[in-house]
């Protein structure tokens, strides 16, 4: 046990850290290679790729689409997730179990299946593939997480708080806007960042629900299938740094607001990419 504690466990841990970071570091380095091919060793270095990808029109267009989709899907997800959480909080027993099961259902389906089912659905209701369809798909995927986060926060709110406000003369609308929503705001901000990230890095739903325009992950996927240059490594590194920074900030933000362990990004996790 002493041996395990002193050497083997820390050794395995740092090996794991290397496993997590080394490939990303190597990819980041590849972005500096002064050549048209992805290959080692790197003999000549350049920052040209990092500069160039930021002017690549296709990449910029895909990032813009991804951003639009993320914002739209997050908005839908929160607007729908809120009432779902309110309804769930009102129910109890078997009804609550059934409701929760239905709410989290999309998170338990294989992603491909869920994406395809939505593809059939939008075809039936006459929605074209494209930005709206992708945003819709992402909202479906992220709504369960909004519900879980809001519900956790809602459970910590004593019933008396809304009653006290009512007693002091606040009607139901004022209770909603002055008491409930402000109280939920940490959970809502956390859910906002979570949904943005979830949408931004989704591939499968964007792939099946997208039209001619590609979101960033779809663009990256299709380029990777037809050969690649160090520029892809450069843009991947940039995106990786931005999302990781955003994710860590979100994590810290949520923790600092004492939202409780259950609502942090880590504990809810995400089940689909």
């Amino acid at each position, binding site marked *: 046990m002493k041996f*395990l*504690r002193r050497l083997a*466990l820390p050794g*395995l*841990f740092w090996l*794991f*850290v290397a*496993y*997590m*970071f080394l*490939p*990303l570091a190597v*990819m980041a380095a590849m972005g500096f290679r002064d050549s048209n091919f*992805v290959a*080692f060793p790197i003999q000549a270095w350049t920052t040209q790729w990092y500069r160039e990808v930021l002017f690549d029109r296709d990449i910029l267009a895909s990032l813009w689409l991804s951003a639009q989709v993320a914002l739209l899907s997050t908005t839908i997800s929160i607007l729908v997730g809120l*009432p*779902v959480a309110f309804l769930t909080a*009102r129910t109890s027993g078997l009804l609550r179990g059934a409701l929760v099961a*239905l*709410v989290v*259902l*999309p998170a*338990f*389906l294989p*992603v*491909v*299946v869920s994406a*395809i*089912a*939505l*593809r*059939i659905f939008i075809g039936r209701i006459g929605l074209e593939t494209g930005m709206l369809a992708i945003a819709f798909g992402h*909202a*479906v995927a992220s*709504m369960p997480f909004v519900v879980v986060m809001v519900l956790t926060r809602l459970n910590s709110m004593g019933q008396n708080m809304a009653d006290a406000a009512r007693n002091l003369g606040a*009607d139901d609308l*004022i209770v909603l806007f*002055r008491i409930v929503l402000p109280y939920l705001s940490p959970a809502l901000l956390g859910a906002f960042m979570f949904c943005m990230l979830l949408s931004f*890095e*989704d*591939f*499968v739903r964007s792939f*099946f629900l997208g039209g001619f325009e590609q979101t960033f*992950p779809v663009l990256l*996927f299709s380029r*990777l299938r037809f050969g690649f240059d160090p520029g892809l490594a450069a843009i*991947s590194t940039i*995106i*990786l740094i931005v999302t*990781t920074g955003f*994710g*860590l900030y979100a*994590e810290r933000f949520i923790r600092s607001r004492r939202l409780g*362990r259950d609502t942090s990004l*880590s*504990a809810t996790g*995400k*089940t*689909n*990419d």
Partner: protein
Amino acid sequence: MTRLLISLRRFALYRGLLELYGRSPLLRLILVAIIPVLWIGATNITPLFQMVEISFYDRYPVPQGEPIEWTGRHYATFFERPLYITAFLRSFIFASLATIVTLIVVFPVAYYISKAAPKNMRTRLLLLVVAPFWVSEIIRSFAWIVMLANRGAVNSFFSLIGMPGTPFDLLYNNVSLTIGVVYLTSLYMLLPLYAALEKIDDNLLEAAANLGAPAWQRFFRVVLPLSREGIVAGCTLVFLLVIGLYAMPQLLGGPSNTLFASTIGQIFSKAGDSWPLGSAFSIILTGSALAYVGLFVALFQRKRRGRAA
């Protein structure tokens, strides 16, 4: 905002509506429930039913003016073609193996962070490992392509140290796919495991040691039973994630070892009239995956004795 809402109360109609809403529990329930019921019905239930429906269509979309022909032939196709059954079985075997590998790789890491590392370092270590959580499947795949390609980092390293026979064919096989998949899934395993292990009271281990239990007994009779919930949650998450993987197997896996999710995706990417077949396959995959996971969870839940292991 508040002032506006308060001044609105001057109007009798608004006051009346508020009173009506305040007094009628039924109206409250309806207003709160309307969006959730519509949304869940439309997005979480209807698409699945439509999928089931279409899987029994002979063709989709149904040509103008022709009646719908119902058939079970798409389900039959699955059982008639060894190609599909093989892909299906390969998917389940691969997902199970990947889950086990992930568990073995991640357990010591989670144990180290939650129990063995110095107390003041634990949060920081967790944050360090969790940092790459949000890197997407595609970027992760790409990073491993750069690592494992014929002129990638690993081969370059091997030839640098003078290993004969380089470059090795490291990419596009089951090993490279497993490395990439575990790279993707390990954080989904880490978080539930960490949460479960962290809850175990350190005093329990000391008590066990005090009662004379050797290290391996402490591990198998105290730590493992108490972290069972975390293990079950992590394995469920990871299995469902892997069984639905679409992009990574195409980027890192071999061309001959197609997984079932990719098969379904490819069927769907073709012309629209292959949708019934794809739907049938989707239902087969979903049903079996949920049953498989359900069985796994039930088996573990049944074994559970009291809390005091």
